[in-house]
């Protein structure tokens, strides 16, 4: 459902990179739309997951899943891939973050959970966050224990600072702006107070606040 709402925010004609986790589900919702997926391993126009006979061992995505190619796809090496990513050629990047900070920071890795400090996998997450002008977070609003994931200051190691534009969760749609976080949409039946109760930074309630259309 988070994936569905996020997919509606992506305009036709966009080049998009979807991070691991919830963002990969967005690919189901954009099938048939004029949106091109870039895969950081070195591919444009990545198609849906491959199964059975379709599996080609030389054709995987960045999450190491076997995928298919769409007509018009291209392959290139890792240098070319990060050229596109770091050079700002990707229109929208959606990351599944662990936390989002009040000023547009995000923490995309769960290294803390393994007790090795900052040692852990980074992958392409930092490049993806640094390179794009439209960074979206698609994540659950709280942890399994009900703790807010939208916090004033990150407690997980930061992946990037000040780059997040929109946050899509199972409860709300929030826009990150210089004055602060604007609550734009709420899950049907919820009030702004409900959302604020599980969000650390004070939310600015949009004048045109509405319910999510799903």
């Amino acid at each position: 459902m988070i994936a569905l709402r996020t997919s509606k925010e992506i305009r036709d004609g966009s080049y998009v990179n979807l991070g691991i986790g919830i963002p990969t589900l967005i690919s189901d919702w954009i099938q048939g739309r004029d949106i091109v997926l870039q895969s950081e391993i070195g591919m444009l126009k990545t198609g849906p997951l491959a199964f059975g006979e379709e599996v080609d061992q030389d054709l995987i995505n960045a999450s190491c899943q076997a995928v298919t190619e769409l007509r018009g796809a291209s392959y290139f090496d890792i240098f070319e891939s990060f050229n596109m990513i770091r050079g700002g050629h990707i229109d929208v990047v959606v990351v599944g973050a662990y936390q989002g900070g009040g000023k547009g920071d995000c923490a995309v890795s769960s290294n803390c959970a393994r007790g090795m400090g900052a040692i852990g996998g980074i992958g392409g997450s930092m490049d993806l966050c640094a390179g794009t002008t439209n960074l979206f977070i698609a994540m659950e609003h709280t942890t399994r224990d009900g703790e807010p994931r939208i916090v004033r200051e990150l407690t997980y190691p930061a992946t990037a600072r000040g780059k997040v534009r929109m946050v899509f969760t199972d409860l709300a749609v929030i826009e990150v702006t210089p004055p602060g976080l604007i609550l734009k949409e709420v899950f049907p039946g919820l009030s702004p107070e409900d959302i604020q109760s599980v969000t650390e930074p004070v939310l600015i309630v949009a004048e045109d606040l509405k319910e999510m259309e799903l």
Partner: protein
Amino acid sequence: MNKVFPSTEEALADLEDGATIAIAGFFFAGVPRVLLEAIVAKGVKNLVLACGCGALTGAPEERAQLVRNRQIRKLIDSYPFYRSATKGMEDPLEQAVRAGEIEVEIYPMGTLAEKYRAAGAGIPAFYTPTGVGSPVEERVISNSPVPAVSKESRMFDERQYILELALHTDFAFVHAYQGDSEGNLRYRKTANNFNHVMATAGRITIAEVENLVKPGEIPPDEIHTPGIYVQRVLKVPRPEYKIAFG
């Protein structure tokens, strides 16, 4: 030129303890498995393995043996561990890292790609916006007990960039779908990933190829890695594996 070697033993005759070897591959795609097996068989130690994105994760048997035999001194990668924390806690490689037996250096993937490219391109260092505001900005992410040197950064057009250095290696092990005796290589689909940039960065690049063809059989404008970057070529069977990642 005939760069084809008849066996891995001969191709690796000058591989010694302490070498830095770039290992291509992105998880399961494009990993030089036969050359990894050969390192295990040869028993060279104190190796620095410079990977791109989890090449060892894509060669689980070789990964386990290299760790068991204590052949790895240091591992450079952007994503060396399993994604699942539970699987990671049981993983001998991760355990060796936690115990300080294997040193790791972790870089963002784009930075790592550019380090190999810069090395091959004769560019000693470069500035990148990646990692500003993150732990990567101050120093290399490493489990080394010796504190790493601080990284430099500077502003261009009111935006901050981090200075990163080129990464040269003694050897580069690459894997290609097709190769000829001149060392020209062509990759298949996403199995290129780090292969080309590492081929340019290694002082001695050894390419294992699934299809050894005559020069001219790969159409000249379909060559991905021109032979100038490749010193040795080995014919290997096309690997069979199941893609399984955790």
